Every structure is written in structure tokens, then in C-alpha cells.
């Protein structure tokens, strides 16, 4: 996104996670996680359910004790520190506003605990409400608010006491799609304004791509890839990432002497292969593929297949193509053909630029440490 590393505000802190491990009986929730989060960075923990992302967040919050490993906020080791001494703001999926207090009392709660004076509390509550565009809502009851408003109050409550770190556990998953997209940008703007080190948990990859400086993808308790959204999308390092982020169709390729072969033809690549394993996959993104006419530009890799059908999706048209081995791939384009539209049943050729020709190992490697 737009932010630069190290741009964090004076109060925000970097987080250093080392060899963090947690077992629940035989189940490994977290397996030697190493992660460095820069001061002021917005990082997202992304993964399917059971991947360990929430466990990791709860450990940062102090609600789950690791079996082994270290967490440092700045220079301070916090593994043994109880939650109320960590100075973190937290936002939960269901907002967790206190229903027996009005909006202003919810916001004042952390300030009262810190022994702030009454006039200072009133002042800061008013400012926080203004920050989340809810000025004048202080006297409202929590149950009088809409979902989006509740989420804003929860956010304001989490940052009003100027925490050094903000943790968010799927805060938008209860909202409908339009509101969710609006709130994504709002949370990101708020983050940019405050420069708070933020850790955000979601299972929604689009949300992660939209909001984050960097994304840490977890699977089965391991950190699979840590990258900026664009790199994560364009250069997945494993089959799991390729499948998990965006729409992908994988075709098996054969690797021999540093060359990748598809149906016996050598593919032109932009970067060297990550793995020497003989069986790997070619990860194809529908929007990176081109249905070719008669003349083939020589620099493209070409796959041949038979067109099955076109599907009109409003902003784009998706064409499904069956390959020689019966596998199906999709090609997306934003407008129709100029001269001649291939009909279902026609033989077609699909072009892929070498920089979009991504070969990923089939097994999941651990992230380099």
C-alpha cells in the first residue's frame, strides 16, 4: 500500500516474535513462528480456519500462553505479562461493547482505569468520537447503534488510551459487503493517521490485500509466506498460496535440469525455479492469460486447448478452456473480441507472458527463517 516502513508514530512499537510454539494436546496450533513487525506497520494474519492466526493474535494480546518462544514489544519481553499490562488496543469480531454503559462510558472505561481526571476524560471522549465520525453519539445506548457504528465505537475505545499496538480479530466479518468495504478503507485511513502498529486477523484474502502493508499467510500453524500484497499475489511461493490467494487454476508440470516442461514443451520463465522437485504446478490466474488469434507473439508461452464456453459476468467475460489432459482452466478478459469470437468447441491457443508463468512446488515449504 502507500505507507513506508518505519513511518510509525512516536508511541507505536515494533513487535518481534521468535520461535513461538503452542500445542493443544496433539494438535499443533503454532509451529515455531518467526515474525518481525515494524513500528507503525499494518500487518495481516491471513489463513483458513484452524491455521493458528487467531491463536497468534491472542498470544500478542496476552490471553493465550505459548508453550515456547518469545514476543517482544520494542525491547520489552511480554510473554509473561498479563493483558492489562501490555498496553494494547483490541477490537473483536462481535464488537464486545459493554451493553450496560452508554457510548461515552464505553470510551471512558480505559481512561477511568488509568485514573484520568473527569474533564480530561470528557475531552478525550469527544475527540475520539469525532475521530470516528460519531460526534454527539456519547449519550446513546449501545443497542441503539447500527453495526457499522458499533464497530466505530469499538475502534475508538481501543485507541482512546493511546495504546502502542492495535490488534483486530476479524472486526468486519459481521458487516454486509458494502459496509465492510467502506470500513476497510476507514480503518486503513485511521491507521495511517495514528501510525499505530496494527495486527489484523482475517480469513478474507481480498480484505487482506486491500488493507495491509504486508500479509503473513498461516496454514496449519506455520507461517507459509510473508510478503507485500502485490508480491503475494504475483509471486506465490507454494501451491497453497497460489490456491488460497485469488482465483487460480493449477496445471502439473515436469521439472528437469532446471527447466519446466508442460506437455513436453519447455516453458520460458522470468526467474529461476524455487525448487528442484520433479513434480510441480503451473499456477494460472485467469486475468493474466490471453486467448490468442492466428499470429502468436514469439515471447509468449502457449497452451493449446478446446473452448468449452463463455460466461458473461458483467465487468468481464470468462472463457473456460479444456486442455489436452482434460483439465479445465479459465481465461478472463474485460471486453469481447474484435474480429472473430471463437465458438465453443473451437481449438484455441492461450498465451502467458514469462513473468506471469509461475511455477510452484506442490508441497508447502516453511518460510525461510
Amino acid at each position: 500500500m502507500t505507507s513506508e516502513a518505519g513511518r510509525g508514530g512516536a508511541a507505536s512499537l515494533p513487535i518481534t516474535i521468535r520461535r513461538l510454539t503452542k500445542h493443544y494436546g496433539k494438535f499443533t496450533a503454532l509451529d515455531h513462528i518467526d515474525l518481525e513487525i515494524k513500528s507503525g506497520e499494518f500487518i495481516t494474519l491471513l489463513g483458513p480456519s484452524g491455521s493458528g492466526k487467531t491463536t497468534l493474535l491472542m498470544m500478542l494480546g496476552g490471553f493465550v500462553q505459548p508453550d515456547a518462544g518469545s514476543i517482544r514489544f520494542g525491547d520489552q519481553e511480554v510473554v509473561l505479562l498479563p493483558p492489562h499490562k501490555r498496553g494494547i488496543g483490541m477490537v473483536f469480531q462481535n464488537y464486545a461493547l459493554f451493553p450496560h454503559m452508554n457510548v461515552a462510558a464505553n470510551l471512558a472505561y480505559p481512561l477511568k482505569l488509568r485514573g484520568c481526571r473527569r474533564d480530561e476524560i470528557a475531552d478525550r471522549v469527544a475527540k475520539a468520537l469525532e475521530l470516528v465520525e460519531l460526534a454527539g453519539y456519547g449519550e446513546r445506548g449501545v443497542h441503539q447503534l447500527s453495526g457499522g457504528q458499533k464497530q466505530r465505537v469499538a475502534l475508538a475505545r481501543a485507541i482512546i488510551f493511546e495504546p502502542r499496538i492495535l490488534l483486530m480479530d476479524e472486526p468486519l466479518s459481521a458487516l454486509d459487503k458494502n459496509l465492510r468495504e467502506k470500513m476497510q478503507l476507514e480503518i486503513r485511513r485511521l491507521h495511517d493517521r495514528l501510525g499505530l502498529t496494527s495486527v489484523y486477523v482475517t480469513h478474507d484474502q481480498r480484505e487482506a490485500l486491500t488493507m495491509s502493508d504486508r500479509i503473513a499467510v498461516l496454514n496449519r500453524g506455520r507461517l507459509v509466506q510473508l510478503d507485500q500484497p502485490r508480491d503475494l499475489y504475483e509471486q506465490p511461493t507454494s501451491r497453497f498460496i497460489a490456491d488460497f490467494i485469488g482465483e487460480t487454476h493449477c496445471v502439473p508440470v515436469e521439472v528437469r535440469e532446471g527447466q519446466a516442461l508442460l506437455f513436453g514443451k519447455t516453458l520460458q520463465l522470468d526467474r529461476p525455479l524455487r525448487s528442484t522437485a520433479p513434480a510441480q504446478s503451473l499456477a494460472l490466474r485467469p486475468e493474466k492469460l490471453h486467448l490468442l488469434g492466428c499470429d502468436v507473439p514469439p515471447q509468449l508461452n502457449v497452451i493449446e486447448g478446446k473452448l468449452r464456453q463463455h460466461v458473461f459476468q458483467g465487468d468481464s467475460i470468462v472463457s473456460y478452456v479444456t486442455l489436452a489432459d482434460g483439465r479445465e482452466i479459465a481465461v478472463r478478459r474485460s471486453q469481447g473480441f474484435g474480429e472473430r469470437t471463437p465458438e465453443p468447441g473451437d481449438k484455441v491457443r492461450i498465451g502467458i507472458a514469462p513473468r506471469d508463468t509461475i511455477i510452484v512446488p506442490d508441497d508447502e515449504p516453511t518460510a525461510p527463517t
Partner: protein
Amino acid sequence: MLRKSATSTQITHLQRLWLYLLCGLVVVFLVAPTLLVVPMSFSSSRFLQFPPPDWSLRWYRAYFNSIEWRDATFISLQVAIWTMLVSTVTGTMAAYGLHYCRLSLRRSVQIALALPMMIPVILIAVGVFMLFAPLGLNNTITGLVLAHSTLAIPLVMISVSAGLRNFDANQEMVARSLGASRIRAFLTVTLPQIANSVVSGALLAFVTSFDEVVISLFVAGGDKATLTRRMFLALRDEIDPTIAAISTLLILFSIVLVGASQFLRPGSKT
């Protein structure tokens, strides 16, 4: 009226008549025995007699003028209040602990704590008597409070557990992240929201102790006799309508107590 439908379905009140009659019968059999003592207490007769031959307040006078009855009432109130305090605090702590407990031991502890509700009270009474004898706790307020608390704690626990099930645990976590220690988070966020179930647990505990007679027969002798124990003995020795007067007062007391708890309950929140 009888032809109108009772619900959104087509069933009419007429078709439901048998149900109304059945309910009426159940209510009569449940409530009539309780209400029977009321007229008897205003009787002028020397014996428990229904219907009373004539009306009088003499048995109320007898109750209020008797030092023994007054002392027994005072003991009962004292024991009931202490039992309420002890079992509400311990029962709430037990319910909270078990609610958040992740150990496999949890089920066993839950069953162990609920045991006093399943075992016949007479067995508990005998056991308590045998245990208290060497400890010198028989015929003391402390002993009575402890014994009654074993009966009351499970009731508080059940009531508070039900309250905790409807409580969102994330709220306490948020409070802790905002800077509250665990106990402070409990007192400022959790307790106000489960207050209803704690209060109804406390009332149950009070009534359990105040009504209790079997254990009291064993361990509440001498000058520590509770009201129920004296009533029970009086019933055996001299059948006199003072008991009906006391019973009527107790019914009134219960109604006031339940009414107050209903009245104090804040409007149900959604």
C-alpha cells in the same frame, strides 16, 4: 369468545377447553394446601381446624408475645442471611471458574458440587452431625451456616452458570486489554451483566436456608433452634394454630421477597 382461534393456527378456545380445565386443576392442587393455612391462622379455636369456628387474631398475638418464637425467628434470619452471603460468593466463584475451565476435571467437579442436591437431605444431616460433633460445631450459628451453604451453593451455581452462558466472554477480554485486571474486569463488566442471576441465586440461597428443617433438627438444638425446627417440634407436641399464623406470615414474606426481586429486575436487555 370460545369460537375465536387461540393462536395463529385454526385451533379455537373451545377445542382447548380440556387444556384449560386441566391447568385449572393443577393450579388448585398446587396452591390450595398453601392457602388453607391462611383462614386457619385467623381461627379462634385452640386446635388446627378447618373451617375455623370463629375469627380472631389471638395466634398472631401468641407468636409476637412469645420470646421463644421471636428468638427462633431471629436465629433463622441470621443463619439465612449468612448462608446467602457465603453461598452467593462461593457459588458465583465456582460457576465462574467452571465456566472458563478447560480441564477435563471440570465435569467431575461440577457433579461433585451438585451432589448435595441429589443426596437425600436426611443423609446429609446425619453426616453433618457426625462431622460437626468432634469439631464442636453442632448447635452453633457457624455450623448451621456451613451446613445450609452445602445445600445452597449448587443452587447459586446453577443460576449463575445460566447467566454466564448468555454473557459474551469477549467483553471481559476487551476490558482486560483496556487495562483492567481480571478481578476488576469481572466486577465492572461481567458482574453488572449477570447481576440478575446472582441476585436470584442469592434469594434461592436465603429461602433454602430459611425453609430448611431436616438439617436444623440435627444440628440446631438448644438456644440455636431455628424457626422451622421449633415449628416442626411444636407441630408434634402441641397442635396449636400459632403455626398457622407463622406460616401465613412466611407466605406473605415469600411473596414480598419474590415481588421485590421481580420489581428490582431492570428491563430485560436484548
